[in-house]
């Protein structure tokens, strides 16, 4: 078992029920049944430790453990997610206002017995009350404190906690019979003091503005999108969260690039070994995680990219792996090359496939001189240029009309411009592509 480090410093606890599950979603549960189920769930803990639970009316303040049914956002910072997924949560004991509060997701179909695709309220309530009393999740099987829903118990009237849970609750509150449960003083050792608060740093005005666009490179690395601009980068997670409004300095995060690096041409995560490849000018670096591997930089000419004109490629404008086929694409000055980087004899080959270069214009509907490209979402290709991005659906190459969207608004948490204007087709500046809203 695992303890949270927090407990109630009393054994006579009060609880209250602030609402009931929606009848439309949990039609089998009457109010009386809900009250009975919750009472039995508390009894599971009071049977194993010298605890007592007395119900209070919700309008009298609610007592120590306040039970509610909520859906989605409910003002505690931990929104529910609809049916399935997360079912409930509870706050550990303490003096905090929310301590002991126990919330159930009202989008679940709660039931007594948990049959027919519903969720058994009793087992989830016993689990959550365990949190409200100070227990964390346990990896032991059997234990009611395992984090995953385990289905209904055989009989709530005869339900008894498993040994793991009994030892945990007795460690905190002692045993009911005479004896010494978990030592003479079941109180936990004092927790270390939290780190002193750090003063808020004002935003550095010299940082490049993320809302202006014009990124040097954009890359999907380990499921996060990195936007490089000058000597800085921003980072967003898959769910669209921007980790900070302020950028981080490239040199403080990516170790091994030359001092004074103030522009990254292109970056991508290599498929075969998950190393990260940086292109700057006529050189490239391979990173293992955030540190450049020894032996780099190496000349870009090693990639064997020869222009149609016969010249050796001296810079890379964009690089990405197309999820559609797993191949690596490098773009330079209006032409692109394709690579198969699957490992052969333990080596990653960096020679372009036959038939390349080809013209960027083959990627219809997007700018031919893009800033960078990534694969994202369900394998779609995202083309970035200035402050706009275009999405080519998975496997698509010839989508004549691809409506661009704002990088600043969609990726970097910038306000939308006050009015919309008709978007130009990047290939035909004089021709407009409109949708219904425009």
């Amino acid at each position: 078992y695992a303890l949270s480090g927090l407990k109630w410093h009393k054994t006579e606890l009060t609880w209250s029920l602030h609402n009931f599950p929606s009848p439309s979603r949990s039609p089998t549960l009457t109010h009386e049944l809900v009250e009975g189920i919750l009472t039995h769930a508390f009894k599971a803990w009071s049977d194993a430790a010298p605890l007592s639970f007395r119900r209070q009316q919700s309008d009298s303040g609610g007592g120590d453990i306040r039970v509610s049914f909520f859906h989605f956002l409910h003002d505690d910072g931990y929104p529910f997610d609809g049916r399935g997924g997360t079912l409930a949560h509870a706050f550990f004991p303490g003096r905090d206002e929310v301590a002991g509060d126990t919330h159930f997701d009202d989008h679940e179909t709660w039931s007594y017995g948990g049959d027919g695709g519903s969720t058994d309220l009793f087992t989830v309530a016993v689990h959550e009350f365990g949190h409200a009393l100070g227990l964390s999740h346990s990896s032991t099987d059997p234990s009611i404190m395992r984090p995953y829903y385990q289905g209904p118990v055989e009989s709530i009237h005869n339900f008894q906690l498993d040994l793991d849970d009994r030892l945990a609750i007795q460690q905190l509150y002692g045993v009911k019979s005479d004896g010494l449960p978990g030592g003479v003083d079941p109180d936990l050792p004092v927790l270390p003091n939290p780190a002193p608060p750090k003063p808020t740093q004002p935003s550095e005005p010299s940082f490049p503005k993320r809302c202006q666009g014009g990124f040097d490179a954009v890359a999907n690395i380990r499921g996060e999108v990195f936007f490089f601009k000058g000597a800085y980068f921003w980072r967003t997670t898959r769910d669209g969260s921007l980790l900070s409004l302020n950028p981080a300095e490239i040199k403080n995060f990516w170790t091994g690039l030359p001092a004074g690096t103030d522009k990254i041409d292109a970056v991508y995560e290599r498929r075969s070994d998950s190393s990260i490849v940086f292109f700057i000018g006529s050189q490239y670096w391979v990173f293992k995680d955030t540190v450049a591997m020894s032996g780099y930089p190496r000349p870009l000419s090693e990639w064997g990219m020869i222009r149609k004109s016969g010249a050796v490629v001296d810079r890379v404008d964009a690089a990405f792996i197309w999820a559609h086929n797993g191949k690596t694409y490098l773009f330079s000055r209006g032409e692109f090359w394709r690579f198969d980087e699957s490992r052969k004899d333990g080596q990653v080959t960096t020679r372009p496939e036959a038939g390349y270069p080809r013209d960027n214009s083959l990627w219809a509907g997007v700018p031919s001189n893009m800033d960078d490209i990534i694969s994202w979402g369900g394998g779609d290709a995202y083309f970035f240029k200035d402050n706009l991005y275009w999405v080519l659906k998975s496997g698509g190459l010839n989508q004549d009309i691809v409506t661009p969207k704002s990088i600043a608004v969609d990726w970097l948490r910038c306000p939308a411009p006050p009015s919309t204007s008709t978007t130009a087709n990047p290939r035909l500046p004089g021709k407009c592509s409109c949708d219904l809203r425009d």
Partner: protein
Amino acid sequence: STSSNPEQYSSAVDWLGRYGYLPPPDPRTSKLQTMEGIERAIRVMQRFGGIQETGVIDSETLKLMSTPRCSLPDIVGSEDMLKRRRRRRRKR
């Protein structure tokens, strides 16, 4: 490979972070998650969940990740619910 199914991979990393197996991301104080770190986190998650420890996001792992569960993290470190709540309250 992280590139073969980026959505599935990102979802798994998101899940590992939400339930305490990976540290919370912070561009100023934390490193990029290393492949070794993610593999280690997957192994801990698999051990905690009682399934075979493979270190990769296999079908059993995905199945466990999609099982309905409690919102609280399994690994409670400095980012446990109450402390986050207190910090948010202080900010407010």
